[in-house]
């Protein structure tokens, strides 16, 4: 069986986008059903793709050459589809969350009587299309194009309520900040194309013997000469690091890593289902996914890996501290999203390819769940988002409460919920490679570990404030009920947030010393990612004895005592810290009328509440540095460049207006001029010819 249906996975939501845009206003639910049908179809097709990949098939095909086709050109630009274990897994995540979010939107948007719904569903459809196409893009340029398109959809959907003041401004900020990162990404894409065009037929492809990660690997390894590469005078490895960091600019912007994380909290101005889909589970994951997609390229560069790990670890801690003091439920979730993506970056940078992808998957489930749960609470609270005005919702909304609790336990990393397994693996990878290879990774690990109790604390502060205690406002005393269309997605995601971790129980495997318990695989995801297209799989990246991270970055596992002891120590440490944080958050705020204990932080709280003045310094950078610089450049352009051009033209204008006066219109004058000219010519020829 082949993958002929693969294009339809992305094209179905595109059709729903077109339907919602054109005839959505005349449809019963304003385009929602088209979106549900399309994303449901994508989900089924993705499941089919996963089944085939599980059977050992892969798909890497060029569909369309859209530039440079024909003889005599070095570089062809193409659209293609790459389905391997990584992209198949991500296809499932994206189409599943998109499907559930469409269903949830029936409750959050349709039932609440919002206007402009065709526009909303068109946006969701376009987003789902772009994201799916990004996920199975076969080359870097295609990935970049859809990366930009998801950014556009994010802008459209954050600014959905464009008649209010805040959403359009938040949308603009999100667009500009991510675009700043994408600028570097674009330079990186061009750089990759230029560098590898001489050495391979398909310099931008992600997979295959001629793809850029494979060529880069061969060059660094020495089995291929660097002569055909354009490295602009750098050593190949140094140049690959530079290119990798340029692409990383786009990753940092899209995955909201420090210092380009400032847009994500503001993006919460958009509708809550949009926050769940775009700003938690999928679009923000695009950055991390891109690093995983071209992991072979980063793996040959130890500096790039170290930077990824350090940025990730720092962001994890940094964002978690800000989440502690926020009052609005979606703000807390936004900072926790930034923090969790930090963990994924930490894992990827520390050589934990599987751990990073695992956390990406579990996070997509539990964070989408938490956002949808928050959406359910917001419906019930008549669009009030301040947690201090909630309280006591536990009895009134049991489904929301229990699913939200599952998501919170997963986020906090409590055994045996999904987040525990993935976060533990992230920290374990960082720890062993830190011990074995570089103290730099140990520092990143320490930050990641420190963020664990903070995460658990703010998570349970949020749960207690929202659901426990007594109702603090009239809205909380008499919440608005939610229907099946809200509960159904919550239950599905709640189950996933509970059980998704069982896909990869590394500590259990170490403890039992066997990878299967009877017929049940204990590390299914591990096996899933280990095999795939030649040169583009976890086996090659990190697992094998001759793996890329081991060969080129020198990542070797180091242990305290034995491997088992280290595993248990790491798991115990992160679980213990998470439990301490969770209990502290629960105890401090589980009161009928809780007080804000973070007030005790004093001026530190102000700093945290104002996000370490990140917005302020970025505005200052824009207004105080960039704007004057741009003004200076403008003055140079207007004065010097335009001045020279204008000067040349005014000289010729002036001389033209003088010289034309010899054109008198009187025939005798012309005759005289001709005669004079003849005489001058004669004299000149005579003088030069030596007649006199």
């Amino acid at each position, binding site marked *: 069986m082949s993958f002929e249906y693969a294009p339809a996975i992305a094209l179905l939501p595109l059709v729903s986008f077109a339907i919602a845009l054109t005839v959505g206003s005349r449809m019963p639910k304003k385009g929602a059903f088209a979106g549900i049908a399309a994303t449901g179809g994508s989900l089924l097709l993705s499941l089919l793709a996963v089944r085939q990949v599980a059977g050992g098939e892969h798909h890497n095909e060029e569909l369309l050459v859209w530039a440079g086709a024909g003889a005599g050109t070095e570089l062809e630009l193409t659209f293609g589809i790459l389905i391997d274990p990584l992209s198949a897994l991500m296809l499932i995540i994206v189409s599943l969350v998109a499907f559930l979010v469409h269903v949830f939107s029936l409750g959050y948007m349709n039932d609440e009587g919002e206007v402009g719904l065709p526009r909303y569903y068109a946006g969701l459809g376009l987003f789902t299309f772009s994201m799916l196409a990004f996920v199975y893009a076969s080359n870097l340029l295609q990935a970049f194009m859809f990366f930009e398109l998801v950014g556009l959809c994010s802008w459209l959907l954050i600014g959905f309520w464009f008649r209010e003041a805040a959403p359009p401004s938040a949308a603009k900020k999100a667009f500009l900040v991510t675009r700043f990162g994408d600028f570097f990404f674009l330079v990186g894409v061009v750089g990759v194309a230029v560098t590898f065009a001489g050495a391979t037929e398909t310099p931008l492809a992600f997979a295959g013997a001629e793809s850029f990660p494979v060529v880069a690997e061969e060059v660094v390894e020495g089995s291929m000469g660097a002569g055909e590469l354009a490295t602009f005078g750098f050593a190949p490895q140094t140049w690959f690091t530079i290119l990798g960091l340029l692409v990383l600019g786009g990753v940092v912007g899209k995955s909201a890593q420090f210092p380009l994380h400032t847009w994500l909290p503001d993006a919460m101005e958009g509708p809550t289902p949009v926050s769940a889909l775009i700003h938690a589970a999928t679009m923000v994951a695009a950055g991390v996914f891109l690093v995983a997609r071209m992991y072979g390229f980063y793996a040959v560069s130890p500096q790039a890996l170290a930077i990824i790990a350090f940025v990730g670890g720092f962001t994890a801690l940094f964002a978690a501290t800000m989440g502690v003091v926020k009052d609005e439920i979606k703000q807390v979730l936004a900072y926790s999203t930034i923090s969790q993506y930090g963990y994924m970056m930490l894992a990827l940078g520390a050589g934990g390819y599987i751990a990073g992808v695992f956390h990406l998957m579990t996070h997509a489930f539990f964070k989408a769940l938490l956002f949808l749960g928050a959406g359910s609470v917001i419906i019930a609270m008549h669009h009030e988002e301040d947690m201090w005005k909630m309280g006591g919702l536990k009895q009134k909304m049991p489904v929301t409460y229990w699913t939200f609790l599952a998501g919170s336990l997963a986020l906090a990393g409590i055994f045996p919920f999904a987040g525990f397994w993935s976060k533990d693996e992230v920290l374990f990878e960082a720890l062993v490679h830190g011990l074995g290879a570089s103290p730099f990774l140990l520092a990143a690990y320490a930050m990641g570990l420190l963020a664990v109790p903070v995460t658990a604390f703010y998570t349970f502060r949020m749960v207690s404030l929202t659901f426990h205690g007594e109702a603090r406002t009239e809205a909380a005393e008499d919440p608005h009920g939610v229907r099946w269309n809200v509960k159904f997605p919550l239950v599905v995601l709640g189950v996933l947030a509970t059980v998704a971790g069982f896909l990869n129980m590394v500590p259990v495997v170490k403890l039992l010393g066997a990878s299967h318990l009877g017929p049940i695989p204990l590390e299914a995801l591990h096996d899933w990612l280990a095999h795939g297209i030649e040169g583009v799989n976890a086996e090659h990246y990190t697992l094998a004895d001759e793996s890329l991270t081991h060969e080129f970055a020198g990542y070797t596992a180091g242990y305290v005592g034995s491997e088992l002891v280290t595993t248990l120590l790491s798991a115990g440490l992160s679980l213990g810290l998470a439990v301490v944080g969770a209990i502290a958050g629960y105890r401090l705020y589980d009161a009928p009328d809780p007080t804000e204990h973070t007030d005790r932080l004093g001026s530190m709280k102000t700093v945290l509440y104002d996000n370490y003045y990140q917005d302020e310094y970025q505005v200052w950078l824009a207004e105080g540095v960039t704007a004057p610089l741009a003004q200076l450049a403008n003055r140079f352009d207007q004065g010097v460049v335009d001045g020279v051009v204008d000067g040349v033209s005014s000289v010729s204008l002036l001389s033209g207006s003088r010289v*034309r006066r010899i*054109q008198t*219109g009187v*025939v*005798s004058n012309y005759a005289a001029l001709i005669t004079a000219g003849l005489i001058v010519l004669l004299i000149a020829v005579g003088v030069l010819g030596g007649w006199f």
Partner: protein
Amino acid sequence: MAVPVEYYLLLSAAVFCVGLFGILTRRNALMFLMSVELMLNAANINFVAFSQYWGNLTGQVFALFVLALAAAEVAIGIGIILVLYRNFGDVDVTLAREMRW
């Protein structure tokens, strides 16, 4: 008895200068036309003189062509002068000065 070629050239130059003087000083269009004829004939004299000097008939044939051209030119010139007279009521060339900057 052969006349030396320098004499012909002097005659030709004299006729040419008379024609040129006429063009530069006269305002009457008919005088203009006549001056142009004089200059053309100065060239003809040169053609014929050199033709005889080199013993080659080409120059004489050219002189015949110039005569024919001059006749055609006069026909067009007279036409222009007629139009000039119709528009300005005079044949003064300095009156028609519309085509300028």
